[in-house]
């Protein structure tokens, strides 16, 4: 049909209801990342501690002389603590440019002019980060628990430490949500992904350095609430039924984490808007 014959035609395609567009964004974001070999390398490297722990469990289950290596409840706590480093690097790699790059390219207005709400946009971006962060925290920790049962050939350990299932889940959720919401909030504040990454590093390392300096000066660790990482550690100890490592009420540690997450969500709702109002 010649072009000049084409008049107005009604849209004949299907229109998906509002509320599902975030999945498209998540799928595209995840696919873009897993197509990069370097990133896959980082994700594989993040599973190295799992391999080490799995070997440890195998050796302890096979050789009675190595029974001292047998996993305990706190083994899983230590494992998730170690994964903190990978959480940091994955968050920076994946999250720094999530909103900052869209702001830089003025794509935010374009996204929000489609049938997509800002909540969907945030959900879509957040899920990209969550997918990869769950992949380096919750997933390997649960796999480790499963590996223990497989190598031991019984479910006795899991039955005796049933609290590990909710503990791993709850701590992973706190760890992943804290990292993801904070990074996304910072990403919405700037147009430069590198600046965002440095702000995130500053937020986590500087607050920890500040807390350590205060601990060195006063000899007390009650200022752990200053550092989101330290608050999370304190919360983790309580979740895993261990002796808390800092002289800080777990309720305050929990509150610090909740305030951080809530503050980040508040920033996101303020910054992710289709129209920039200039006053």
């Amino acid at each position, binding site marked *: 049909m010649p072009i000049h014959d084409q008049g107005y035609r009604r849209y004949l395609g299907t229109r998906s209801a509002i509320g599902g567009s975030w999945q498209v964004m998540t799928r595209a974001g995840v696919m873009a990342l897993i197509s990069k070999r370097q990133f896959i390398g980082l994700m594989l490297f993040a599973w190295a501690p799992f391999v080490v722990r799995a070997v440890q469990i195998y050796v302890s289950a096979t050789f009675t002389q190595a029974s001292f290596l047998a996993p305990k409840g706190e083994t899983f706590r230590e494992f998730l603590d170690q994964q903190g480093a990978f959480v940091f*690097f994955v968050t920076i*790699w994946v999250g*720094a440019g999530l909103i900052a790059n869209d702001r830089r390219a003025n794509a935010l207005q374009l996204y929000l002019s489609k049938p997509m709400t800002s909540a969907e946009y945030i959900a879509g971006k957040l899920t990209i980060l969550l997918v990869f962060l769950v992949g380096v925290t919750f997933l390997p920790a649960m796999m480790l628990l499963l590996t223990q049962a497989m190598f031991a050939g019984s479910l006795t350990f899991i039955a005796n430490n049933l609290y590990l299932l909710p503990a791993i889940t709850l701590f992973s959720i706190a760890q992943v949500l804290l990292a993801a919401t904070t990074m996304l909030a910072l990403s919405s504040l700037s147009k430069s992904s590198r600046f965002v*990454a*440095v702000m995130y590093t500053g937020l986590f390392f500087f607050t920890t*350095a*500040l807390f350590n300096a205060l601990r*060195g000066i006063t000899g007390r660790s009650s200022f752990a609430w200053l550092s989101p990482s330290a608050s999370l550690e304190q919360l983790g100890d309580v979740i895993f039924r261990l002796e808390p490592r800092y002289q800080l009420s777990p309720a305050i540690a929990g509150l610090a984490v909740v305030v951080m997450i809530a503050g980040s969500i508040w920033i996101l709702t303020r910054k992710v808007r289709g129209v920039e109002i200039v006053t």
Partner: protein
Amino acid sequence: MTTGHQAIGPSGHQAGRQTMSFFAASRRVFDLSLGEMLWSRRTIFMALVVGGPVLLALIVKGIEMYGMSALRVNGQRVAGFGIFGVMIWMLFLRFIVPVLGVFYGTALMADEVEDKTVTYLFTRPIPRGAVLIGKYLAYLTCTMLVVLPSVMIVYFLLVPFSQLPSTFGNLLIDLGLLALGLAVYGGVFAFVGAFFKRPLVIGLVFAFGWEQVTLALPGYLKQFTVAYYLQALVPHAMPPDGVTSILQGMFRDNPPVAVCLAWLFAYLGVFLWLASRAVERKEYILEQ
């Protein structure tokens, strides 16, 4: 060192058969970059970072003035210079110096590539390496102008006047090693920024991954870090602040000052040369 290019004026007219030396070209870029660096939002970030220790020192001073007991550890009063030492270790050496090195060092070339302005710099009749060196010198001036005065303020806030004569020499050592740290980390990360595609992630992995892990390991691996030589020059005792610090303290050995200085200057020279060479040879592809 001179180039065979002809100097072209800003209006595009040929200014004659003048050649600009490497030094003069670096100085031009330095003049241009310093203003940009000083009046950017990065400086706000830097001011916030170095403002933290000053604020902490103010709080400590306030507590001390009101005679409160916050500055007692196990019943023993902590001396002002001891607190200053803790802050040098925990805040400046372990965080501020590496993070500023990573942030600014990796941005020297990466910023120009990201903003797609590198083409304009490279079309000027100056050696490409001079662009990097000029920007590096601007980074060094800018960070030193912010970090070193902050250390001085913290020192004068925390250390009582009676202790000034006996501790001033150590302050000078602190200032010197922080300046050296900024220079060496800046050089290393300038190379990372000029050579790698994802410089910031690599820089962070080096500063907060590789350096922290290898310092807590026995053997020779820690000699492949900047922190090993830098920390050996610190005149204060290392404060213990967790398992990593205890391990680092266990495997810590203090090489002689001359060896540390030699290695640090070698790192600086080698990495700056490599960075300059990378800029000279690399073809930067600007993303559309």
